[in-house]
């Protein structure tokens, strides 16, 4: 993998901020946005390419964590807090919350994918 360019780092930064804004919980959302900004700002003068790659890899892992958590937590009721204007995030999820028979699009387990069981491979027909 080629060393991360400035453009790639910026793309990652934007992707992380964009994804963080989907947290429906006020405290998680504000923390994520703040932490991401401060972390990228703190490391903006790093010159060593190995160190840059390490940081980029960690950021990519954190981006995946945010993506998974945003989806997992979408099925939790997103209630507003005192003093906050209600920021309409995950609107459809909010409405689908208590509809009978509705469930979040993806089961939480699928986000943490695991290998298939032994017998599932044997079920495949031989050609």
């Amino acid at each position, binding site marked *: 993998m080629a060393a991360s360019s400035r453009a790639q780092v910026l793309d990652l930064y934007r992707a992380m901020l964009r994804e963080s804004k989907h*947290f429906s919980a006020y*405290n998680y959302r504000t923390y994520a946005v703040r*932490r991401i900004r401060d972390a990228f700002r703190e490391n903006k003068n790093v010159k060593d390419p190995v160190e840059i790659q390490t940081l980029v890899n960690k950021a990519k892992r954190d981006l995946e964590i945010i993506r998974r958590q945003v989806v997992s937590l979408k099925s939790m009721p997103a209630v507003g*807090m*005192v003093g906050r204007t209600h920021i309409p995030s995950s609107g459809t999820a909010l409405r689908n919350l208590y509809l009978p028979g509705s469930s979040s699009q993806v089961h939480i387990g699928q986000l*943490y994918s695991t290998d298939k069981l032994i017998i599932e491979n044997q079920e495949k027909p031989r050609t």
Partner: protein
Amino acid sequence: MLLRTAWRRAAAAVRAAPGPRSEAPARGLRLRVVDNAPQSAVPSDTATAPEVESVLRPLYMDVQATTPLDPRVLDAMLPYLVNYYGNPHSRTHAYGWESEAAMERARQQVASLIGADPREIIFTSGATESNNIAVKELEAAIQPDTSLVSVMTVNNEIGVKQPIAEIGQICSSRRVYFHTDAAQAVGKIPLDVNDMKIDLMSISGHKIYGPKGVGAIYIRRRPRVRVEALQSGGGQERGMRSGTVPTPLVVGLGAACEVAQQEMEYDHKWISKLAERLTKKIMNSLPDVVMNGDPEHHYPGCINLSFAYVEGESLLMALKDVALSSGSACTSASLEPSYVLRAIGTDEDLAHSSIRFGIGRFTTEEEVDYTVEKCIHHVKRLREMSPLWEMVQDGIDLKSIKWTQH
């Protein structure tokens, strides 16, 4: 006012659809009962959405009582709750092996946060169990010169940091065991069990953005500290704490410790900044406010303020939009003022009017500003109503009054 109509609507919903907790105390919980109300409402697009929006939860400023899970911690735990559900003590199959690997990784994460060896960490159900194990140790090794010193690293009520390194030094020179309950300190201030000569340490998961129901005890191996097991059974955790180790919970504890180690400095800076903002604003706007606890040796995230001439409980009830506390949750059932405040020599009347503000990793400037604004407003209002305040304004010295009995 929008809030008043929201409350009225909420109250009507409570009367209409009694929730399972209808007998619970009103403050705060009433909102949760209403949270369930939309279940019974007809799910039409336009009707449901505004209903849910109008129910507002209070801000959370009580991190000493418990902390929310960090998303990184939940992310680490979920696979072990859903997919990798093996018993870590099963030695004969992959489910057991992967669960055990996760448990040992978590043990390493906890150990590295406090400078210990992983073999010195025993998982428990929380800091309370750890404390019990540590204190019972005193009875286990009864010799003429054995004793145990047990000190809290950071006090949970006033946030004072105890001089742990100095105490450790004294204890090790006198051959006395040194235990510290570090529930409020782990992951927040740098701790090293070897530098501070700590023999036993209690760790709590839910105080460091980890899950509830799990903790750990650090037990020194060199020189060996012998403890007696509280819980006997299958001999897990080196015989010191039998019972299946709850893999998802310990993975959460380990992840919380790792995150805390990485974020300690950043969190400390942020929390100090917000704490300074809160205390400055309150003290500049209100007279007769006392901060309890030594200002120098103080953990910034726990601010305990006494507002003279205002009753603490009534201020808490007035600040219903903010989740606060007036002392530790351990003693909340009794009406006695905090024993900690009494111990530091606070006047009885000031002890009754203390409020604890908790600032944590996820607290925002907005929340602090809102809390400060409401606090100032209500303290002023309550003081206006207080006859004691009136007397003070007239220049009467309250200490000189002889109160008669009727």
